[in-house]
């Protein structure tokens, strides 16, 4: 019962290793290094990386920018009684998406194959931007304007749901995103 007794060899740190352990340690270490290098590798050769672009800002100034964008590029309203504006912003522009209890605002309409600078920020608590069925998931903080440059690849109607628990109506926080 040696693991629950003091080591039988007083100088246990000088005992030789068996081949099985040595070989496994070498293999495992190589694999660990491969896994580490995959991350910087993907930053250079891969296309799916989160930007390091984020700004501290206030809810008021973020709402102001969002409202200006809506005023300029609103194409219609949706969501029944909620009358959420649908915005078709120009290609390559700054697109603002508000996360708040319990709504994504406004609805975005983008073009496939074109890039947009999408801003994400919460007005209150933490929210989780979850684009389905594409399955892109990003944490949305209050006070941090997070900019991601996105290129939608396929046309279709996508959903944005909230996947960071944000209180009693968390499960009602879902919206649409159109790609034309």
């Amino acid at each position, binding site marked *: 019962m*040696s693991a629950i007794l003091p080591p039988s060899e007083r100088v246990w740190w000088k005992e030789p290793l068996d081949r099985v352990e040595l070989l*496994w340690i070498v293999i*495992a*270490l190589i694999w660990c290094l491969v896994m580490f290098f995959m991350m910087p590798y993907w930053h250079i050769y*891969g296309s799916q990386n989160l930007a390091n672009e984020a700004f501290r800002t206030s809810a008021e100034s973020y709402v102001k920018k969002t409202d200006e964008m809506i005023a300029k590029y609103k194409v219609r309203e949706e969501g029944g009684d909620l009358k959420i504006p649908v915005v078709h912003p120009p290609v390559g522009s700054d697109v603002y998406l508000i996360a708040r209890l319990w709504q994504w605002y406004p609805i975005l309409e983008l073009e496939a194959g074109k890039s947009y600078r999408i801003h994400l920020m919460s007005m209150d608590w933490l929210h989780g931007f979850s684009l389905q069925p594409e399955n892109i998931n*990003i944490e949305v903080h209050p006070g941090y304007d997070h900019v991601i440059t996105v290129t939608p690849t396929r046309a279709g109607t996508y959903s944005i749901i909230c996947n960071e628990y944000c209180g009693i109506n968390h499960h009602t926080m879902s919206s649409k995103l159109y790609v034309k």
Partner: protein
Amino acid sequence: MATNRMFRTCPSTGLVFHEPAEKLMKANAVVAVVFLLIGGLLAIGVTLTRWQAVHWLAPDRFYQVLTAHGLNMLVFWIIFFEMAVLYFAASTLLKCRLATPSMGWVGFWLMLFGALLNNYSVLRGDSSVMFTSYAPMGAHPTFYLGLIVFAVGALVNCFVFFGTLAVAKNERTYHGSVPLVTFGAITAAIIAVFTIASGAIILIPTFLWSVGLIEHIDSLMYRTIWWAFGHSSQQINVSAHVAVWYAGAAVVFGAKPLSEKVSRTAFLLYIFFLQLASAHHLLADPGLTSNWKIFNTSYAMYLAVLASMVHGLTVPGSIEVAQRKKGYNNGLFEWLRKAPWGNPAFAAIFISIIVFGFLGGISGVMMGTEQLNLLIHNTIYVPGHFHATVATGTTLAFMGLTYFLIPVLFRKQVMFAGMAKWQPYIFGIGMAGVALFMMGAGTLGVPRRHWDMAFTGNAMPYEFPGTAWLMMGLMGISALVAFLGGAMYLAITVGSVFFGKSIETPGFKHVRAADGVAPAPQPVAAAAGGHGNVGSWGMVAPGTFVLALVFLGAFVLYYFVNWKYLSQVWPLR
């Protein structure tokens, strides 16, 4: 000396119990199991709501029950049991009196009071903020206060543990180095101190914020520091349950670690590279650079992953060597075929190792990769991961230890022995199913902590694919199996401890330490080459090596499948 130095020697194992330590171990273990019972009952509500075909609880009740389930399982059950493990590893394994048992009781009552206070706040209904309690979502002040008091109690107990180590060294109750299991427990306790310090740094300001003394808690700061507490608390579990794996191999098989050097170094890697690892929770957050994320999620080499891969080899490897020495030396796997599959202590630990490695370990590393995290962040994949690591890995290892402790510590015969044989399989397979199907649903985007995947009544609902619904249904069915296994465990432990037949111990005697506690173990002459001439291919444990390669193959395949999957989502930069 006024100190109580009463000891008893367990006649069947020769282990020495210091009576004040024994009382504390019993109290902590019993309270732990009570919290497991509470957490298990709450789990029924969680499962039967998330299983969309049943969808039992109303949303407010669901979020409340989920909060309480997380806290009672991830914190109260596990940490109480770990306190018993710490006392066992220090006092019993070192044959030493417990330092300041009265402080151990102070710690115990603080922990119990804190746990009850926290449960009270959740019960009030205004603190359904989940285990993570992310500011600026606020809970009732007693929520934070309960956790703080609990943590102070746990800290006191850690220092009772450290004090006991010092006493053992001073009084020379052991020779040479501490046993490997004690070394693992020390690792757990050191990580616990770091964990509690991080918890204090974030929870004390949050408490002050909740009573109105601080105006603002930054959400990113909260998440960064909170996870140094939240994830490290689970690293205590890893260290503790790996120590329990080694203890199980030693108790059931008389297994000797393949090499003390390797196993101890692996524990040391946990201290250096595991406890700070909260960065993998922040991979999808703004305000932190990729450099910071990549470095801190891996420390450039994933050395904590390496440590777990080493333990995953050395524990079964030591079992293999012990079995081969007993004569089960044919072929690659005779040692495994002839293992005592009907012994619940072994079965629990073996399933714990397999599920922790294959489901918990691989999924954990995948999630902790900067870019891959995008695919599963905050989906139900995440609880899938930790139901493999904590709910199966740690919990099942502790269950296995209980089967050993009932006769040894509580001096009771294990009741319902026939049922006990099956319990680890039913719980382990059920919980592995829960983990696996949650991961499946998470891969399809099903969110965690979410009352309604049907989005009923929403103006703009999302329709999940049928497979996601199927996965959630299978998760529910697996959970029912796991509940059965959990109920069997509770029936066996509660039955044995409170109503079981006492073991009459002819060898039972109180021994004063002054009269000589117990003879120091005689050094055993090691066979040449460390483990004698068992095994093949120049390896002492070739069967384990093959299993390890199977694990590596699964790991590599799954890892790159996810990169492939990532390469197909919308380009982002």
